[in-house]
């Protein structure tokens, strides 16, 4: 206890000068530690016996983010079931959380994608503003509807200004893939770029779609990428672009990345054109460390990387804004064709739940559930159909719950 208060008072003194860049490694001995607004806390849990010294680094939010709402020791999190396999997977998440006695209450908000009015999604956005954190399934966008009906997921991201989409692709030893030992972090700008949804038909038969790149957003995402790279101890950041063709747009993005890079001399910065990037990813993926890119290239690259490590059912993703965080699967699939058949892979959604628990600073629960998932994947090797096994979703979830005990 004395050690704790000493550390606390030390950080109270140091923090105003260093503005939150101080990284403390403080072991949490089961007591809660009230955190200051700008203090970063990192805890590293090491799994020795079961998974053969695999180091798990918990995800944390960068500084400048307010602590999530916490009433009576329990957190409230917005849950948006979405379409397709979203509802069933999120039910499993709720099951696992209840089983592990995680102090999180879910506020379920349904969004009906078939309706044209935006009331549903606005309700969801208000709920997230209230709670600060959300866990969501993908909401389907019917692209045969009129262009005025915007994608719900996109609306959510832009209204809450969730500017960074972070995805950590790590090969799991128990999953059979063509490439082994991949470890790539992808940071994708989440609000502008090609996803601005600004289109018009100036002349009949000619459609223009605008891609917007702004200096502010590019600087913001580059800064986020470098900060995250530094916090995770990564050595290289690669910017992915197409500035040889889109000289102004991607040129601005690249320039912002270079500017930010100059402020982080300990991290190497290089850039690569997007078509070369995809080619390198399928032949030599181990050359990549952290990648930062605008919206559309982020879509392509994140899907390629997800495919490389084993598929959409394995990788969780997070969307961070200044004030809010929304967690989902990395590749944002609705999985309509496998909905309701008990064959979907719950890993991605469960790992997204663990990321959320880390964000809420419930590190012990997060590591407990994560270890159970990894044991099922790597030791027991109970896999669902998408990674070549024969298990059903419920069997996998049961196995995970057994491992938690």
């Amino acid at each position, binding site marked *: 206890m004395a050690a704790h208060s000493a550390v606390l008072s030390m950080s109270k003194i140091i923090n105003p000068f260093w503005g939150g860049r101080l990284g403390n490694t403080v072991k949490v001995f089961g007591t809660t530690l009230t955190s200051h607004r700008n203090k970063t806390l990192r805890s590293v849990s090491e799994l020795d016996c079961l998974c053969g010294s695999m180091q798990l680094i918990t995800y944390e939010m960068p500084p400048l983010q307010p602590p999530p709402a916490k009433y009576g020791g329990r957190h409230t999190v917005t849950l948006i079931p979405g379409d397709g396999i979203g509802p069933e997977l999120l039910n499993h998440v709720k099951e696992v959380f209840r089983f592990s006695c995680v102090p999180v209450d879910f506020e379920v908000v349904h969004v009906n994608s078939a309706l044209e009015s935006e009331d549903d999604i606005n309700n969801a956005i208000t709920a997230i503003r209230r709670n600060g954190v959300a866990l969501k399934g993908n909401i389907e966008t019917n692209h045969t509807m009129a262009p005025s009906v915007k*994608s719900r997921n996109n609306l959510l991201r832009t209204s809450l200004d969730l500017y960074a989409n972070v995805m950590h692709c790590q090969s799991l030893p128990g999953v059979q893939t063509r490439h082994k030992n991949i470890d790539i972090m992808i940071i994708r700008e989440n609000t502008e770029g090609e996803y601005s949804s600004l289109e018009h038909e100036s002349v009949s038969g000619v459609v223009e779609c605008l*891609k917007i790149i702004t200096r502010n957003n590019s600087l913001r995402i580059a800064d986020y990428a470098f900060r995250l790279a530094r916090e995770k101890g990564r050595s290289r950041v690669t910017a992915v672009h197409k500035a040889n063709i889109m000289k102004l747009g991607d040129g601005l993005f690249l320039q912002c990345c270079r500017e930010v890079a100059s402020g982080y001399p300990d991290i190497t910065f290089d850039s690569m054109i997007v078509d070369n990037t995809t080619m390198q990813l399928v032949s030599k993926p181990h050359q990549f460390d952290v990648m930062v890119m605008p919206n559309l290239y982020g879509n*392509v690259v994140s899907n390629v990387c997800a495919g490389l490590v084993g598929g959409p059912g394995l990788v969780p993703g997070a969307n961070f804004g200044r004030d809010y965080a929304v967690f989902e699967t990395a590749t944002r699939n609705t999985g309509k064709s496998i909905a309701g058949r008990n064959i979907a892979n719950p890993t991605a959604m469960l790992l997204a739940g663990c990321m959320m628990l880390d964000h809420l600073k419930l590190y012990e629960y997060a590591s407990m559930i994560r270890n159970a998932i990894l044991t099922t994947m790597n030791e027991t090797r109970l896999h669902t159909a998408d990674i070549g096994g024969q298990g059903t979703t419920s069997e996998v979830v049961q196995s995970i719950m057994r491992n938690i005990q």
Partner: protein
Amino acid sequence: MAGKAWRSSILNLLRQWGLSLNGKDKIKAQEVSRVVGALMKDTPQPRTFTRGIQTVTLIPGDGIGPEISTAVMEIFDAAKAPIQWEERNVTAIQGPGGKWMIPPDAKESMDRNKIGLKGPLKTPIAAGHPSMNLLLRKTFDLYANVRPCVSIEGYKTPYTDVNLVTIRENTEGEYSGIEHLIVDGVVQSIKLITEQASQRIAEYAFEYARNNQRASVTAVHKANIMRMSDGLFLRKCREAAENHKDVKFTEMYLDTVCLNMVQDPTQFDVLVMPNLYGDILSDLCAGLIGGLGVTPSGNIGANGVAIFESVHGTAPDIAGKDMANPTALLLSAVMMLRHMGLHGHAKKIETACFDIIRDKKVLTKDLGGNSKCSEFTGAICQRVRDLD
């Protein structure tokens, strides 16, 4: 009657008329098939078969371009392909009015011959003129870029059994080059999709599928986000699908295609898409089979013009050292032969090339061996002669 029945009846008729089938005036059965095929199909054959020598414009290019062009010419010589080469150089010159263009003799040669084979062209940075590839594209209105990606047996990659074709719209889309600085710090890039270009590429994709016995065409899009632009592209694809009921048509989101491509590339056949997605996906597929050094590519233009090219760079570091790998240009030339209808020669040269790579005795450095380019070429020439 079926094609074969027509063919045998015509052959019998010719025999009756006394036209020799095995003598000096050899009428090959394939020729009869070709004519029957042309008569049976509604659309004209891509290249009407002439029994004479076909002239092709050859643009050697820069860097390793001349070496690999020579290699290809040697191999074609050994295969006795009825091709006559007309070499031209392409550099950017400024015409009257300040507009950049290619030399007039190159343009005239291409317009006359309609078929071209091009090596890698270098674009010096800050040269003041647009890239050479862009100039060629604009000059001949090369609207479709076709890249067949087939796994090469001797060249091991983590992906086997890849057999797909990417057809990419080459003129508009995200690469229209229209950009504005709206206010300081805000840049807008315009992606242009037109009905005419989308229709043209969709029609071409289905024609290609039909002519090359491909079972399905998949349109790749992102219409959930770019509703109007990719929506227009999709509509045109659907309309073209209506006119070609024999080819299966599916639509798939770009991210789903990327995800599935790296997990199981065998599920794809022909992919058609706008410019940016095409750029990324075609390079992704090239990476699956082993990179740009072994990938052929063809550009189809309006007015029957077609330019086949190797898409790798000029490799100035190995230029002139007899180390280059001519496979990409060779396979593009084989694509060219198929486009012209010379399937027999195409098969012979392609088989020889794949056999040599599979044998692994004589391979250039990038394929994992340490032979010279001339040795590699020599081996292929020898195999071609043996196959005769």
